[in-house]
């Protein structure tokens, strides 16, 4: 008979989750299970809906990364109605998108994953949260965080209606053009954003690099997996959130494949297990070898660290410099240390701020022509973008009137599910020794998945998986 | 299935169809007892919410009877009934409610025989359709 320890619910992440840990008689980890009790059936209930309504419907998959779904959906509609948005529309979309990335990544650092390190791993659980952060770094910092977040949300509201759920996405563009005074206002904001991004990286410095305990943890083998990495890159193989080719590098950092979203079915595959609501994504032509890492296993990871690993740097100067610093500090590409996700995330925050600043300086941004009206329905459309937590793909099939017949969604966290599961498993084995499962110990297991900033509301399917004993 | 007796809610306008039902009564013409009448001043008063509510309350069929075109006591209330009926019927199909369960007819006060036929036909058709299982998937 096995002793069961449960962490229910797992906390400081987006969505529901529960970890079951079974110990054998010696108090060693026998098996661990992460389960997500969620299933919302979007793939089904979107059938019968009107295509043009999809950006506003599918974004409700996730209230934390709605803009990602809204954007992937809008792009799928561009494809479905075979209409190219005007330049200004693309820029408005990208601006909105980076504002969202900026704000969402910061949320994770200050509210969700960061507190473990900012407040300290040994801090009492009551303190391991944003309110603890307030007491550690001071209320002024938190007020600043709140203020910056408010500004970023305000920017989104200005562009897309709601600070949370954008509604401006349409096939062939956006519903509202930006005015010159909007642009000037945005330009003011982006200055603050860049400053705050750099400020946050300083906090990261103090918390991770200057703090030996945390740094050792980051580079320790407990949170380490040699996997493939996948992410969108622009024509120069630089990280891009809004558009580009999907690039995959191997555990050795070399490019192994590069493809357009339309071909996703040739490269990516999902599997279902009897005990699992979860569909596990893996690289189709490498194949499924179980929950193991290494070159032979099709398991890949996505999200901030993966994007940096899968690219050749950032498209903006400050972010690129920080990118260089990270890889030199952690021993070159690719970096396999899961906790480095925190660092990569903040580099993306800086990139997002810089990119917003570029766009805000672009005269085309305020061109009133923000829509092209489609005259055709191709009956199939695919859209992709980089959600904060990884690559996101929407695939629609409609009838000739544009009524949805079939919907398929590959959601960021699904890509990482295998990785997350391995991380929990590995951490559990390393940390739980002869039955010692103090609260602190269990949290050490939770930080394994928090690094990924998983969005289990997005991965709208239960995942409950078994790791075979090795 | 023949033991099944469908319940029909009929919305009758005060001026033509309700009058007609009364005259059928005075003439003592027999018609199926499945009909349950709601009197409204005008078929234009019939709110689609009432129809949906009636289905919710286990009516198997619903009938809206109004004055003939051009004879509405309130000029054009019967056209409102027609417009709502057409949209509602189409939407109810999406909810799995067959078209045959919602009907609209123009009946003048003098068309007693037509009234009897309409009712009898609907009862006959509803027996074929059977009950609406609104509570089939509660859990």
């Amino acid at each position: 008979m096995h002793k069961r320890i449960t962490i229910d619910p797992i906390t400081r992440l987006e969505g529901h989750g529960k970890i079951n840990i079974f110990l054998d008689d010696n108090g060693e980890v026998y098996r661990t299970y992460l389960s997500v009790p969620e299933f919302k059936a979007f793939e089904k209930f979107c059938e019968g809906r009107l295509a043009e309504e999809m950006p506003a419907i599918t974004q409700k998959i996730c209230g934390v990364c709605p803009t990602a779904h809204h954007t992937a959906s809008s792009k799928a509609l561009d494809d479905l109605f075979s209409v190219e948005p005007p330049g200004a529309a693309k820029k408005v979309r990208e601006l909105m998108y980076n504002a969202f990335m900026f704000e969402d990544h910061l949320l994770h650092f200050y509210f969700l994953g960061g507190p473990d390190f900012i407040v300290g791993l040994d801090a009492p659980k009551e303190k391991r949260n944003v309110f603890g952060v307030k007491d550690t770094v001071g209320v002024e910092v938190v007020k600043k965080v709140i203020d910056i977040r408010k500004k970023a949300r305000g920017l989104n509201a200005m562009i897309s209606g709601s600070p949370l759920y954008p509604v401006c996405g349409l096939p062939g563009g956006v519903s509202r053009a930006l005015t010159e005074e909007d642009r000037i206002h945005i330009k003011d904001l982006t200055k603050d954003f860049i400053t705050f991004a750099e400020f946050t990286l300083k906090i990261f410095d103090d918390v991770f690099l200057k703090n030996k305990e945390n740094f050792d943890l980051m580079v320790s083998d407990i949170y380490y997996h040699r996997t493939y990495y996948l992410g969108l890159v622009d024509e120069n193989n630089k990280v891009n959130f809004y558009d580009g080719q999907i690039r995959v590098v191997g555990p050795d950092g070399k490019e192994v494949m590069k493809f357009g979203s339309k071909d996703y079915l040739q490269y990516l595959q999902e599997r279902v297990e009897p005990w699992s609501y979860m569909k596990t994504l893996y690289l189709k032509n490498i194949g499924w070898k179980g929950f193991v890492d290494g070159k032979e296993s099709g398991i890949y990871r996505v999200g901030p660290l993966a994007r940096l690993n899968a690219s050749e740097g950032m498209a903006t100067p400050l972010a690129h410099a920080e990118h260089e610093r990270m890889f030199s500090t952690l021993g070159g590409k690719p970096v396999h240390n899961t906790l480095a996700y925190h660092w990569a995330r903040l580099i993306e925050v800086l990139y997002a701020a810089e990119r917003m600043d570029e766009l805000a300086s672009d005269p085309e941004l305020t061109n009133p022509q923000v829509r092209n009206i489609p005259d055709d329905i191709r009956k199939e459309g695919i859209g992709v973008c980089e959600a904060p937590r990884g690559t996101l793909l929407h695939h629609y099939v409609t009838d000739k009137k544009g009524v949805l017949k079939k919907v398929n969604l590959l959601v960021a966290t699904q890509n990482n599910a295998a990785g997350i599961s391995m991380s929990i498993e590995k951490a559990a084995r390393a940390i739980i020794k002869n039955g010692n499962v103090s609260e602190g110990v269990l949290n050490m297991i939770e930080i394994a998945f928090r690094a990924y900033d998983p969005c289990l509301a997005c991965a709208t399917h239960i995942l409950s998986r078994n790791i075979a004993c090795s | 299935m023949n033991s099944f007796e469908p319940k029909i809610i009929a919305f009758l306008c005060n001026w033509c169809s309700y009058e007609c039902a009364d005259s059928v009564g005075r003439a003592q013409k027999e018609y199926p007892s499945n009909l349950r009448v709601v009197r409204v001043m005008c078929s234009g008063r019939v709110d689609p919410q009432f129809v949906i509510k009636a289905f919710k309350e286990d009516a198997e069929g619903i009938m809206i009877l109004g004055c003939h075109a051009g004879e509405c006591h309130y000029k054009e209330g019967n056209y409102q009934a027609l417009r709502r009926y057409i949209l509602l019927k189409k939407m109810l199909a999406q909810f799995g409610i067959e078209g045959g369960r919602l009907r609209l007819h123009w009946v003048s006060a003098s068309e007693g025989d037509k009234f009897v036929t309409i009712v009898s036909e609907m009862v006959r058709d509803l027996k074929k359709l059977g009950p609406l299982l609104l509570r089939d998937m509660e859990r």
Partner: protein
Amino acid sequence: MERPKIALYWCSSCGGCEESVLDLSENILKITESADIVFWPVALDTKYEEVNRMKDGEIAACLINGSIRMDEHEYMAQLLRKKSRIVIAHGSCAYIGGIYGLANFYKREECLNRAYKEVPSVKNPEGILPQAQSRDGEVEIELSGFHDLVKPLNHVIEVDYYIPGCPPNPENVFEAIMSVLQNRTLPKGNVFADQKALCATCSRRDTKPEKAVIKEIKRLHEWQWDPEKCFLAQDMICLGPATRGGCGERCIKANMPCRGCYGPTENIIDQGGKFLSALASIIDSKDKREIEKIADSILDMGGLFYRYCLPSSLLEKKVKSLSS
């Protein structure tokens, strides 16, 4: 005296309602000055068994968002009802069922099959579906059960107040929380939003003529509309007239029509049915065939008119009839 305790929980939810709390910005600090947040999975490390250990009625107010679809949701809703003096349905999913409620147009099995067997990216030769109970080697793994229907919160527990919106307007959230902290007595079922429909505050209302009639319905992708003019006056579906105000006209400001996330106004029995009635009434034709033609131009009425409220609507779901 002891500081009041506040709890926040999510059922079948997207996290947007959590964000609506974070969007209180500095007001969050105002709340935590006078109250303790004791349970909030997204931000705090409190676990279920700790909630279980709380005394009945120990929590002053619990905001529950999300609709009810899994066993776990129902269980937690009931648990929190026991532990809380006031329960507030937070957001459209808890209030009227929300967008996931559109799944009520399909059967449970159809939903599972689509996701696990039919999508083109999945490889599932044995046609495996997730099980509530499954055995793996020597251990039993339980999975929270997946219900037949999506339900609003008040179908499974008694609810005191409601905050509409997808997402709710932070002002409404703040007002709700403060009203509890200040022990304001409100009528049961109080809704924290406007009483009138959206049109009352819509910047485009005055552009709507007294006689707006519709010959056809235009869809979003088909044309570029006047960004100042009432959508209904431009032959477009806008649920504003049948939808409670209070959202801050977010969609309208972004030049998009209302989709009804704030739910119906007080006296409406069925939001979709009521809107259909209004829309039908302004169709500009007396000819059966022409009206039918216009009706045919309105695709997916169910999905448009019940976008957020299907589970709390009269019919709640697709009806099964013997003939179907």
